[in-house]
């Protein structure tokens, strides 16, 4: 009895179902209410879009299913025909109606100034000149660093050889810091280094 009633109610529903209405509405994204709200969809890309059925998908009224009865429990559209969410969007939108505050001035670098046009002017002077001058003589900087490239211990010891007396007379606190650092580095380089050197114990 219970089942018969259900069938009767279902049969009335079946008459109202028209499968064509479903396909036309859902396959057209323009009519769908939620998809219309996405702005600049063409440029921006939407998080929500429908997955359209393939062209080879089985359509009602064709193929094996031609003479099957219509039922409301059967999907007239392909399985898993649902919304797809994606977190990938397109590029950012232009800031058209927004005020730009605190805009830093952009200065172009002058690549033809007196300094940058002839930057490497006399680098080959020991070849193309007399041979009395070397490009090392052109470097400007502290005297203990011209023509010298070494790790921190070597640099500090060389600094003491050049500027030790001056620092002892005028800047004793700075000299004390240098000596402390030399003591620390001597132990670090000579006692704390093994086959595999960690970043902490590299020669810098």
């Amino acid at each position, binding site marked *: 009895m219970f089942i018969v009633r259900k069938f009767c109610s279902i049969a009335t529903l079946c008459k109202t179902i028209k499968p064509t209405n479903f396909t036309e509405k859902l396959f057209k994204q323009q009519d769908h209410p939620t998809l219309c709200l996405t702005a600049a969809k063409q440029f921006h890309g939407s998080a929500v879009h429908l997955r359209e059925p393939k062209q080879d998908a089985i359509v009602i009224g064709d193929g094996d299913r031609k003479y099957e009865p219509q039922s409301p429990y059967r999907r007239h559209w392909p399985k898993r025909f649902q919304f797809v969410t994606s977190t990938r969007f397109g590029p950012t939108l232009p800031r058209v109606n927004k005020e730009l505050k605190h805009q830093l001035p952009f200065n172009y670098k002058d690549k*033809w*100034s*007196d300094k940058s*046009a*002839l*930057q*490497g*002017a*006399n*680098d*080959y*002077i*020991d*070849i*193309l*000149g*007399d*041979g*009395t*001058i*070397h*490009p*090392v003589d*052109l*470097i*400007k*900087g*502290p005297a203990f*660093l*011209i*023509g*010298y*490239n070494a790790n*921190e211990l070597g*640099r*500090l010891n060389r600094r003491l050889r050049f500027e030790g007396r001056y620092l002892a007379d005028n800047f004793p*606190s700075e000299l004390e*810091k240098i000596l*402390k*650092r030399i003591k*620390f580095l001597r132990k670090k380089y000579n006692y704390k280094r093994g086959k595999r050197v960690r*970043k*902490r114990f590299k020669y*810098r």
Partner: protein
Amino acid sequence: MLGQTCRKITGSLNVSPRIEFKRYLWRNSICQQKIDITLKYTDEASGSIANKEPTLYEKFLKNPKSVPLITSRKLENCNKYRQPRQAWLETLSTVEDHKLGMLDLHPDIFAVHPRLDILYHNLRWQEFYKKIDYNWTPSRGDLDVSGGKQMPQKGSGRARNRNRSSIMFRTGAKPLGPKGPRALFYMLPKQYRVQGLCTALSFKYAQNNLHIVDSLEIPTDDPEYIQDLIDTRFWGFSALFVDDTDYMPENITYALAEFPSYNILPVYGLNVRDMLKHETLILTLAAVEKIEQKLLFHSSRNKRSSRFSMDTRYDQY
């Protein structure tokens, strides 16, 4: 004893003294250059201007047959299996392009195999060997901070600590940061630098950006003259003029002072980076001879042959 004899020999053979070199290096302002040039001309005998040698173009105008059409140059130690390359001899005396003759160029300098790795190493060396990095961050011992405990071990809800110099604090030390002024100095072997110059020159010749000129003398002081000259010959937006010595003719210095992309250099100022930065390279005849002589001398030089010369005192680098 040996060093003293070497110094005497080199002192007698010096062509470009050190004073002129220093003047070129340190006095970049145009006002100073003008004063030096005018002083030089007044110091010398005023009759020397009349006794100056006429340029090839002036000779050509007077008597076209006196100037030969083809001038072949003597190339030293030319490989008999390699043919010398040829280039036109042009003038700056007129806006139009008149060719005065044809020259031979040494293939071991102007027709070297294009080695891009040598060019890259030269450019990198030019950029980095002069650099000194002044970044410095303090370590725990460099901070002037009292050694006392900041707060009692227990009681406050905060983490436990000792000094204000510890790494966890915002105003504390940076343990593995840059330390001290550091030099990024290194020297390329001499052959790498010699071959770098040769490859740059051969690139310029092969790409039709090399022009040889009899001299850098110009009839007028006008900057428009040189602009028209470069526009008619399609030499590009940037040009590098190379002469034999420091002292340049005054007209060209006044004219090129207004163009930042047209620059003058003597031969000892040539380098790979400036050759590649400027589109065209313009050499004088005397400059070409000097360059060839120097580069061939150094390309065949080794430690055995340079034992008793002043070059070896820089061998520590």
